């Protein structure tokens, strides 16, 4: 049955070097519930190791959690990839790691903590997650699409690491959505960046700390809290739609 789902599909965990250590699975799902969210997605920079732990914490409290990744392309554009099937996420991760060079310096860029559902530190990811994969934008979008994922350009209103800031325009490609940060409304973003472009514009928080979760959300009318349904809503297919962004 179709109903409204308030979604924030761009949340980082303590695995992202630039995110706070407080971004542990239980703390994230508790804060999301407090903010009245129905569906969230975990998208760490070039990495996925904490996504399943948050999904498990979400199941305990009845919060839908989708699996994702925020990939940095060769052009230093951030692209969100969202997936329903863990195997697809795993394959994408493997591909990304094959093209991501360098080692993290925790003292310089921040710690990259892999945790379990309880927030216990398992180990630290030693790759340079802040870096860029040696994959072009269209290759990354293609990679996500070929694994059944949803590809969304992150924070297009931000000068650094956004599609417009890095390229100056929205190229023609199979993007499912353009994300705007909490700083701007969808209407403003459309006027400024995406005139005449058919791709839906949505808003998520890009939370790096707990109090940022839910600062920007998109409400979908969908039948279940998963990526397949969100993709249908982004396309306006089978009665699914974006209600508010």
């Amino acid at each position: 049955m179709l109903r409204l789902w308030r979604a924030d599909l761009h949340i980082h965990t303590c695995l992202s070097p630039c995110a706070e250590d407080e971004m542990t699975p239980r703390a994230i799902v508790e804060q999301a519930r407090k903010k009245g969210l129905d569906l969230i997605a975990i998208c760490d920079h070039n990495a996925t190791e904490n996504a399943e732990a948050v999904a498990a914490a979400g199941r305990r409290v009845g919060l839908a959690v989708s699996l994702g990744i925020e990939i940095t392309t060769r052009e230093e554009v951030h692209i969100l990839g969202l997936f329903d099937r863990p195997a697809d996420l795993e394959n994408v991760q493997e591909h990304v790691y094959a093209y991501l060079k360098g080692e993290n310096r925790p003292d310089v860029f921040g710690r990259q903590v892999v945790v379990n559902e309880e927030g216990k530190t398992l180990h630290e990811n030693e790759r340079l997650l802040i870096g860029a994969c040696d994959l072009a934008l269209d290759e990354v979008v293609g990679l996500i699409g070929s694994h059944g994922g949803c590809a969304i350009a992150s924070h297009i209103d931000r000068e650094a690491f956004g599609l417009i800031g890095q390229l100056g325009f929205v190229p023609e490609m199979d993007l499912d959505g353009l994300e705007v940060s909490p700083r701007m409304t969808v209407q403003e973003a459309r006027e400024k960046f995406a005139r005449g472009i058919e791709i839906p514009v949505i808003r998520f928080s890009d939370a790096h700390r707990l109090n940022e979760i839910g600062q920007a959300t998109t409400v979908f009318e969908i039948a279940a809290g998963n990526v397949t349904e969100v993709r249908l809503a982004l396309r306006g297919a089978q009665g699914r739609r974006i209600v508010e962004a």
Partner: protein
Amino acid sequence: MKLNEVIERLGLAVRTHAEQGESEVTGGYVGDLLSDVIANSQAGSVWVTIQVHPNIVAVAVLKDLAAIVLANGRQPQDETMKKAEEEGVTLATSSLPGFEVAGRLYGMLKAEG
């Protein structure tokens, strides 16, 4: 060449850690893709960029760069200033475009041999 001389001759406005002017500048690098600067810049270089994001400070620390010059009148974000203060990175700005900053710096370093 001392950083102080570079700052003076390029007419840079120093925003953080002016006291490091006695450090030696051994080269320069121009780039706005952080991953490129991480991969290809050399220690002791002055980095000319239009990126103002706080991560530029981390890159300068990682690569032991002599200073960051924001070209074309770009102003650092507050968070970038704060990080540069904390990390001991010299951050300067120029109203000149990157091409001119780099061209002048190249000429100065070449002339010195």
